[in-house]
């Protein structure tokens, strides 16, 4: 019973730093590269990775703009608009 109460208390304890969701992360990256997004979270996320370590993410912003975020194997991030 005690374990249950302790686990419940830990569950409801407020964390100091709230984790960011991937939708918020992508939206922030798009805005950081100077593109308008119209909100703090994207939708319709498509994530693809090739064998060389490059990653391509496509997502739609709340304002209707669809973007492609390219992450190179070296960690360079670039954003381009699709529509």
């Amino acid at each position, binding site marked *: 019973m005690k374990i249950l109460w302790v686990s419940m208390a830990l569950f409801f304890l407020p964390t*100091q*730093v*709230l*984790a*960011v*969701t*991937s939708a*918020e*992360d*992508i939206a*922030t*990256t798009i805005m*950081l*590269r100077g593109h308008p997004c119209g909100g703090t979270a994207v939708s319709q996320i498509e994530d693809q990775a090739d064998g060389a370590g490059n990653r391509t*993410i496509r997502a739609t912003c709340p304002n209707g703009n669809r973007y492609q*975020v390219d*992450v190179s194997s070296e*960690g*360079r*991030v670039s954003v381009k608009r699709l529509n």
Partner: protein
Amino acid sequence: MVLGLFLSSPIIPTVQAGCVKQVEPEANIEHVSETGNIKANKTDANKIESSTKKKVEAEPVAVVKTIPKKAAKTVQKKSVQTPEISLEQLVGRLKETKAIGFLTKLAIRSDVFDFRDTVESYRKKKAFEANAEMLKGRFDGLLLKIMTLLERDPDLSKDIHLARDSIWKSFVEVQS
């Protein structure tokens, strides 16, 4: 947290010193009231009251004279102690923080590398000194961007703000 410990340590002695200075006159007042015969003579009591009032009025002058000197010293100590945040720690904390996502961290990293390359190119052209103000402005903008992104981790944001001079120096010194 570490910064808080640094800041809290120099404040305590000054407060204690201030308390000591304020207690001393109160002891004198008690001494006067004990030695003076208040019940025996009203005029004496008035004199004692007036003498204590004078001493009470004199108190703030003594306190004002002593505290600012020590406060000034503590302010100087604070200004010296605040930049003692290692850059390695800050980078480690930036990597570990959950306030910003992985992609955003990569984007910031790219921006920092681009800025470093820009500084290096100006160094090679021997035009760094001439464009130092412009580069410092870009650096401040980059730092402001990072601090804005760290809205959910205010401690880290504050520490980066406090260490901005040492970060700028690291950019300048690496190339020299």
